C-alpha cells in the first residue's frame, strides 16, 4: 500500500490546473479522477444491485409457490431448477449471494464509493483525492471482486450458501454442503479483494477530509454529508481488518486443516479430525465487523439525506451540531454492540445484559437524527423533487425499521425473535430500504453534477411510489410471520404445518416484490437515457449552498478552473431573513450579505461586529 503512495506522488501531480488531453484509457477506464471513479462505482453498483434484486425475485417465487413448476426457470437456471422448481441448495445460494451483494457490493461500495468519491473533493474544496492512484486501485479491486462473486454462479457446485455471515462449520468444511466447496472459496477470494478495496478507499477519504480542505473550511463548516462519509470511513478502517483476520483463520481451517473454528464434527458419515475449535470465535470476530458494517451502510445515506432535506426544505438543517454528535455517538457505539447478534449462543446473561444496554443506547442518537429531520421539514418551504421524496422515504423507513430494533436488542425477547422473519423485516427496513433510498436520493440529487444533465422528474415520482409502497408491502407482513416464529432461510413453507398458513401472505409479498422490481425499470431507463438525452443541467439546479455547485457543469481535471473558492460560512444558510434570495452559497463572504448577517455569524470577531453595527446604523437595520 505504502509503495503505491510513494511511487505515485512524485510524477503526477504537477499537472493540476492544466487541461491536457488524456487518452481514452486514462480518462474512462484507468482514471485517477475522482468524478470518473465515482461514476464507475455507481454504474458497477447499479449493475450489482439489479443482479441481486433478480436473485431475490427468484427466491420470492419459490417462497410464494413452493409446489408449482415454472418451466421457464429451468430454461435459465438448468439443473438448479430442474423441472421448473428451484432446488433447496440453490435457494440457499440465492439468499446468501443476495445478502452479500446487497450489503457489501451495493450499499457499501456502491454507496460510499460513489458519493464519497464524488462529494468529498467537491464539497471540501479540493482538486482531487489525496492519492488518485489509490482511488483507482480501490475501484479496480472492487470490480475484480464483483466479477469473482458473480463468477461463482458458473462453477458446478454452485455459489456459496452458508448465508452472508458465512458461519463455520458450513463455510469451513468444504464437504459440508454443495455451496461449501468452490463457491465458498470464490466468495472468500472475492471478499478479501473487496476488503482491500474498501480499506484503500476509506484511508483515502479520511486523509483527504482531514488534510485537503480549502481555506476557511473548518470542521464545523463541513456539510453533514462529509461528516457522514468521514465517520463511515473511520468505522470501516477499524472494522474491516478484523474481518480479514477472521477470514484468514477460516481459510486455514478450510485449506490446511487447522482447528480454529472446528470441533467434534461428523460430515457425510465421516468423523473429522478437528478438535478444540470454536465456531463462536468466528461469530465474535465476524460481528465485530458485521455490526459496524450496518452503520457503514446507513451513515452515508443519512449524510446524503441531511443535505437533500435541508436544501429542499429551504431551511437550515435543524440541530447541525446534534446531527454531528449523534453520528459520532453511533460511530463509537457501533463497536460495542456486536454481542446482540449472539444472544442465543449461550452467552453469559450478564454479558448479554451489557450488550443489551449498549444496543438500546444507540436508539438515542438515532432518535436525535429522526427528530432533527422532522424538525427540518417542519414549516419548510418544501420542494418535492424526486430526491426529496426518496429522502423523506428514508426517514420513514429509518423510523419504522428502527422501532423494531428496540425489540430485537432486548436479550429476553430475542430468544423468541432470533433468526425469524422479524429480523429480516427489521434490517431490510432500517438498513436495507433506508440506505437504498438514501442512495437513490443521492443519485437523483447529484445526477446533474455527475452527468451534466437532469433526470426525468415524472419517471422519478413513478419510481419512488412503486418502490416505497412495494418495500412496505414486502417487509411489513414479515414482522407478523416473525412473531409467529417463522424462521428465515427456510426453503418451503408447506413442509411445516404451523407455517402453511403464511403461504398466502408470501404470495402477497412476492407480488409486491415483483412489482417493485419492475418499478426499477423506470429508474434504469431514466438513468441511462438521461446520460445521453436528458435536459441540460444548469450550474446550480437545486439552488444549493455547497461548493460542488460552484464548479462548471462541464467536468474539468482539478474541478475549479481558477483558484479554489474560499469558504466563509456554514452550508445551511437557507432562507436567511434579510437576504434577497433564499440561499447563500458557502463561498459568499459576509461583506456581500450585510443585510442578513447575524451577530453570531462573526464568531466573536470584534472588528467585523463593529463594521456590521456601523452598516446597520447607516441603513436603518435593527440589531
Amino acid at each position: 500500500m505504502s509503495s503505491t503512495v510513494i511511487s505515485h506522488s512524485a510524477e503526477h501531480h504537477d499537472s493540476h490546473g492544466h487541461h491536457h488531453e488524456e487518452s481514452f484509457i486514462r480518462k474512462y477506464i484507468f482514471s485517477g479522477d475522482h468524478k470518473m471513479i465515482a461514476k464507475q462505482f455507481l454504474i458497477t453498483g447499479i449493475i450489482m444491485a439489479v443482479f441481486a434484486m433478480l436473485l431475490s425475485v427468484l427466491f420470492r417465487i419459490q417462497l410464494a409457490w413452493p409446489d408449482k413448476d415454472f418451466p421457464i426457470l429451468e430454461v435459465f437456471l438448468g439443473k438448479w431448477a430442474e423441472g421448473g422448481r428451484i432446488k433447496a441448495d440453490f435457494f440457499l445460494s440465492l439468499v446468501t449471494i443476495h445478502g452479500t451483494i446487497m450489503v457489501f457490493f451495493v450499499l457499501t461500495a456502491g454507496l460510499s464509493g460513489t458519493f464519497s468519491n464524488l462529494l468529498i473533493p467537491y464539497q471540501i474544496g479540493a482538486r482531487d483525492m489525496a492519492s488518485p492512484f489509490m482511488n483507482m486501485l480501490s475501484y479496480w479491486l472492487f470490480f475484480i471482486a464483483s466479477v469473482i462473486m458473480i463468477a461463482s454462479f458458473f462453477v458446478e457446485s454452485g455459489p456459496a450458501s452458508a448465508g452472508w455471515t458465512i458461519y463455520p462449520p458450513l463455510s469451513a468444511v468444504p464437504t459440508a454442503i454443495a455451496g461449501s466447496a468452490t463457491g465458498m472459496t470464490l466468495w472468500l477470494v472475492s471478499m478479501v479483494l473487496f476488503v482491500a478495496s474498501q480499506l484503500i478507499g476509506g484511508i483515502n477519504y479520511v486523509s483527504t477530509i482531514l488534510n485537503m480542505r480549502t481555506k476557511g473550511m473548518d470542521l464545523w463548516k463541513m456539510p453533514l454529508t462529509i461528516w457522514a462519509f468521514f465517520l463511515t470511513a473511520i468505522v470501516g478502517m477499524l472494522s474491516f481488518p478484523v474481518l480479514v483476520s477472521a477470514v484468514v483463520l477460516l481459510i486455514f481451517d478450510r485449506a490446511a486443516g487447522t482447528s480454529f473454528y472446528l470441533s467434534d464434527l461428523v460430515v457425510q458419515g465421516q468423523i473429522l479430525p478437528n478438535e478444540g475449535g470454536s465456531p463462536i470465535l468466528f461469530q465474535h470476530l465476524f460481528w465485530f465487523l458485521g455490526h459496524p458494517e450496518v452503520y457503514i451502510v446507513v451513515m452515508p445515506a443519512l449524510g446524503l439525506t441531511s443535505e437533500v432535506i435541508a436544501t429542499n426544505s429551504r431551511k437550515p438543517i435543524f440541530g447541525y451540531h446534534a446531527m454531528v454528535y449523534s453520528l459520532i455517538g453511533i460511530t463509537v457505539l457501533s463497536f460495542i454492540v456486536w454481542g446482540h447478534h449472539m444472544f442465543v449462543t449461550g452467552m453469559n446473561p450478564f454479558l448479554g445484559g451489557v450488550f443489551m444496554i449498549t444496543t438500546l443506547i444507540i436508539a438515542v442518537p438515532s432518535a436525535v437524527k429522526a427528530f432533527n429531520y422532522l424538525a427540518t421539514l417542519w414549516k419548510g418551504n418544501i420542494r418535492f423533487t424526486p430526491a426529496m421524496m426518496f429522502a423523506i422515504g428514508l426517514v420513514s423507513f429509518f423510523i419504522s425499521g428502527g422501532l423494531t430494533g428496540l425489540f430485537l436488542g432486548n436479550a429476553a425477547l430475542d430468544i423468541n425473535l432470533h433468526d425469524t422473519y422479524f429480523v429480516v423485516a427489521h434490517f431490510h427496513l432500517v438498513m436495507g430500504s433506508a440506505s437504498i433510498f438514501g442512495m437513490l436520493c443521492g443519485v437523483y440529487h447529484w445526477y446533474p453534477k455527475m452527468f451534466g444533465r437532469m433526470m426525468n422528474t415524472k419517471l422519478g415520482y413513478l419510481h419512488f411510489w412503486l418502490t416505497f409502497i412495494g418495500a412496505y408491502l414486502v417487509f411489513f407482513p414479515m414482522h407478523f410471520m416473525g412473531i409467529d416464529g417463522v424462521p428465515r432461510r427456510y426453503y418451503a413453507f408447506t413442509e411445516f404445518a404451523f407455517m402453511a398458513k403464511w403461504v398466502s401472505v408470501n404470495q402477497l409479498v412476492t407480488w409486491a416484490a415483483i412489482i417493485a422490481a419492475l418499478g426499477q425499470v423506470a429508474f434504469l431507463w431514466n438513468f441511462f437515457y438521461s446520460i445521453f438525452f436528458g435536459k441540460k443541467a444548469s450550474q446550480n439546479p437545486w439552488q444549493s449552498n455547497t461548493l460542488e455547485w460552484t464548479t462548471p457543469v462541464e467536468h474539468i481535471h482539478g474541478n475549479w478552473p481558477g483558484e479554489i473558492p474560499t469558504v466563509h460560512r456554514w452550508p445551511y444558510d437557507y432562507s436567511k431573513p434579510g437576504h434577497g434570495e433564499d440561499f447563500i452559497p458557502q463561498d459568499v463572504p459576509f461583506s456581500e450579505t450585510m443585510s442578513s448577517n447575524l451577530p453570531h455569524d462573526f464568531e466573536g470577531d470584534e472588528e467585523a461586529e463593529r463594521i456590521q453595527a456601523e452598516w446597520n446604523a447607516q441603513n436603518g437595520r435593527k440589531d
Partner: protein
Amino acid sequence: MLDIQAQTDEKLVQRKAQKFNLWLGMLGMFMMFAALSSGFIVYTASGVDKGIKTLLPDTFVYSTIVIVVSSLTIFLAHKAAKNGDSSKQKLLLMVTFVLGIVFFALQVHAWNVLTERGVYFVNNNASQSFIYIFTGMHLAHIIAGLIVLIGAIIGANKLSKDGNLFRMDLASIFWHFLDLLWIYIYVFLLLNQ
C-alpha cells in the same frame, strides 16, 4: 491558471495527505493484529488444555535483534538522504533490505524449530497454530516492506531530491512500523507462553 506558489502549496498539502494515508493504513494493519490477539485470548481462555504450552524458540531473540538493527540502518539511510548523500543512502538501504531477508529466514527457521518439537500448525490446540498465524501474517507485511525498500532504492537513483526524500520518509515510517509490530507480537506471545 494557477501561479507557481499556489501549485507548490497544493502539492505540499497533497504530500501531507499521502503521508497521513500511510499512518491510517498502519492503523488498519494494527487492527488486524489486534483482532488476532483478542481471538487468541478468547480461544486460549476456552480450556485448560489450550495455550502455547511451549517455550518460544530462541531464534525469535535473534530475529528481533536483526529487525531492530535494520530499523537503525534505515534511520541512517534517511539521514543520508536528508544530507543529499545518495550513495550512502543506497548502501544503507541495501543493508536494510538484506537484514529484512535475514529476518524472514530466521522466522522460517523458528517454524522449523517449532515443528521439530512437535508444535505443528495443524493442531487441535489452536493456540499453537496462532503462533504461526501471527508470525506468518507479519511476514506477509515484511514482504510488502521489502517491496517498499526496493521502491526507495530505485527512487534514490531516479527521483529529484525532493521526491526521493518524500519516498524515503514513507519507507522508513513503514519499516519502523514493521519493527514495532514484531516487537508487539513477540511481547504478546512471551506474556502468554
